[in-house]
């Protein structure tokens, strides 16, 4: 090995700080307030766009009615598991309750305003009955729940179309 082989220098180097500038010391406060106003302007846009359309909410409920029907059918023939069925029904009921709570009656067209809440409550109850039927392993109750969900699906679909007009 070469005795005069150069070694690597190990340097702990001090930071060289640049001179303070106007932009870093005085501009900071200006920048914060400018960005603050931008965010304020965005909030109404986000709020306005985030408010749900009642027709879409009713369509979502109709989708859950059909999901309940399909779940009951597939569970009835043993295609899907018990745990999966109960979990999905549970998730669906939570979503229906969210729709019930968030639906603004003032925004629902008069033609369907009186029918929607009742249909949602009935759907909640149907999904509960379907869950009970799965827990008890009762195919007749499950079939009845499927039929009720099917009917509610058509009802809600029709209400959604009317609400969208």
């Amino acid at each position, binding site marked *: 090995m070469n005795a005069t082989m150069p070694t690597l220098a190990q340097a702990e180097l001090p930071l060289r700080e640049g001179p303070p500038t106007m932009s870093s010391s005085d501009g900071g406060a200006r920048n914060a307030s400018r960005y603050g106003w931008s965010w304020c302007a965005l909030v109404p846009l986000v709020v306005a766009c985030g408010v749900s359309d009642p027709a879409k909410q009713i369509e979502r409920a109709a989708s859950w009615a059909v999901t309940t029907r399909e779940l009951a059918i597939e569970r009835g023939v043993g295609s899907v598991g018990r745990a999966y069925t109960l*979990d999905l029904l549970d998730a669906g009921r939570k979503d229906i309750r969210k729709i019930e709570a968030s639906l603004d009656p003032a925004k629902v067209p008069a033609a369907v305003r009186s029918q929607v809440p009742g249909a949602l409550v009935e759907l909640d109850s149907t999904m509960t009955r379907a869950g009970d039927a799965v827990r008890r392993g009762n195919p007749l109750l499950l079939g009845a729940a499927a039929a009720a969900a099917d009917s509610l699906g058509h009802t809600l679909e029709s209400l959604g179309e009317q609400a969208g007009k």
Partner: protein
Amino acid sequence: MKRLLELSLGIVTSIGGFLEAGSIITAVQGGAVFGYQLLWAIALGTVGLMLLVEQSGRLACVSGRTVGDALRERFGINFFVIPLVTGLIVSFLVLASEIGGVSLALQMATGISLQWWALPVAFAGWFLLWKGTFGIVEKGTSLLGLVTIVFIVAALKLHPDWGEVTAGLLPTRPSHDRARYWYLVVSIIGASISPYLYMFYSSGVVEDGWGVDDLSTNKATAVLGMSFGGVLSAAVLVVAALVFLPRGIQVERYEQAGLLLPPVLGHAGFVLFLASLGIACFGATAEITLAMAYLVAQGLGWDWSENAKPKENTRFSLTYTVMILLAGVVMTLGVDPLKLTNFSMMLTAASLPVTVVPMLVLMNDEALVGDHRNRWFGNVALGALSIIAIVVLLSAVPLQVMGGS
């Protein structure tokens, strides 16, 4: 013969590794609401991915540099920090959603909440990376991922109108809910052209020691592998169009996708759906984690190799350990996997310009790729993809607000 075997394996693993949480659910949502109308978005995303995979593979074959290496070396640390930070943030969210996908499949099978599964899944993914080699990670999970061919079987069994399916390959105006339509277009593109995919691929080319002699294998893997993979995504959309759309099922929860195959294939369909979701997402979990660690290590100048033992590349192995366990922790907090997946796909699409546009420079740099620079067609295609990526970036926020769930 050996080359043919390598090529076949490469194509097969590209197919098996194509689907993941985002591509599955965006295809299901697209088919359930718009029928075949969004097939063109899948086709566009697949072609874009094919392009980027082939070019990132060619870069690695010719120069021995991965995309991460080349971004740092060609553009310097001041630019590199942008794809590094955006790549890590976006990939972390996608990683969490993939862990969520595996956990959800286990929840659907057992009834035990996905929050309980998240850390064991993350640990299993970490264990695969810790003990496995690059070949095991890439090929093992992808070969198992061939179970996703069940979607093609289901689509064929449903006897779709092939004329209508073909018509879906051309962009059409949506008949309803325009905001949601374009939101899903962007999400599908994000699901198809995830930057982690081609960054992972270029690192894999270097790990496997491919050189100039493997350029034809690279091209065939990119074109054939990604094409067949795109067919898989399209099959998911077709099945959703034929099972969910006529019934009026909109997908508000990821778990609803479990009803996709039972009407066609009965109980076997349900089991195979869970297997597809679980395996596809697990493979993606391992790949994304590695891709993130590759990006950090390559950019900052650390030793990296999945083929080496963890103690030989300690900073690299610590990086993937921390990433995957943190992502697992996120899913234990009860984050909605569907919302997270949709959001991360949108963010992925929005971050595309940061890696796609620089590829135009890299693939024309004589010092890097020599005589294997892009021809005019490659540049035109990449240029078009760059423009699409920029348009997607500009529209991502409004679409997330107006069209997102």
